């Protein structure tokens, strides 16, 4: 039992827990949509004074910000107490080889040091990759009206066609980046 918790969780168990997160929020009278927080944070920062899109009653989204704080704490609890130290992600051999061809070493933890170490952050290229990645996600999520939680999970569970279109878009973008742009930048 303890070992089950400490090891990476299998996909079926993870999927079940994620759907319970969605159901718990529904029974609390809320809907699961994480990227709404990005808009809320802009409003709290005063963006509503200049841009109409951010002029809304963000206090109704306080619950979602609390959820965000919980998500940070959940990440902390996992790394401190619920996992074995420096456990490498067991990705497929094919992925390891493809990434090695791009200059990434085989995984030794859950994130590649080539992108997310503090040393990389203070290189121009490293910083630009993180900045652009975040910028595209934040822009695209709001343009598409939701991210993975709102569209791929909640929206498709409700069989909404717009969410299915958005997820098709997520994959078109992901494939362009992976197969078209990665060979140019790595």
């Amino acid at each position: 039992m303890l070992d089950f918790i400490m090891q990476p969780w299998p996909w079926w168990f993870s999927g079940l827990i994620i759907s319970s997160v969605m159901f718990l929020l529904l029974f609390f009278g809320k809907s699961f949509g994480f990227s709404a927080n990005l808009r809320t944070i802009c409003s709290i920062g005063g963006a509503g004074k200049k841009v109409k899109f951010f002029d809304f009653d963000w206090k109704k989204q306080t619950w979602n910000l609390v959820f965000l704080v919980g998500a940070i704490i959940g990440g902390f609890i996992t790394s401190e107490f619920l996992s074995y130290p420096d456990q490498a992600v067991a990705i497929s051999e094919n992925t390891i080889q493809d990434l090695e061809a791009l200059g990434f070493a085989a995984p030794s933890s859950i994130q590649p040091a080539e992108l997310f170490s503090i040393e990389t952050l203070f290189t121009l290229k490293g910083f630009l990759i993180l900045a652009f990645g975040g910028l595209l996600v934040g822009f695209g999520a709001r343009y598409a009206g939701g991210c993975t939680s709102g569209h791929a999970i909640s929206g498709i569970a409700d069989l909404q066609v717009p969410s299915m279109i958005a997820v098709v878009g997520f994959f078109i973008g992901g494939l362009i980046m992976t197969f078209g742009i990665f060979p140019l930048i790595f």
Partner: protein
Amino acid sequence: MKFIKYLIVGILFGIVMSKSEAISWYRIQEMFRFQAFHMYGIIGVAVTVGAIGVAIIKKFKLRDVEGNPILFFPKNKSVARYLLGGIIFGLGWALSGACPGPMVVNIGYGFMSFGVVFLFSIFGTFLYGVIKEKLPH
């Protein structure tokens, strides 16, 4: 105190995102290269169980803890915004290996670089708000 339940569900979300390795850049690369079932299994189970649950909620008109009906609002019909927005999102998802939830979970996990990714995602949302009217929706 009324917010404590959201904190607890958020903690559960942060734990499952990291324990499932869905916060890992490697896993997102593996997904976009179609080289493992892992991420598809996670999303597939979440969506299938989610769809059954949503159908049950609708069929039996279930109510939330405050006694209000649980309602689902159809999203506005359009193709451009979902497809274009989705593509832009996907580009960023593959590059940074994280969608907004996993960004903050990664910060909690100890990967401080995701603080930069998250700050720029806020800036990206701000940019969208500024040029929203000029984009096809």
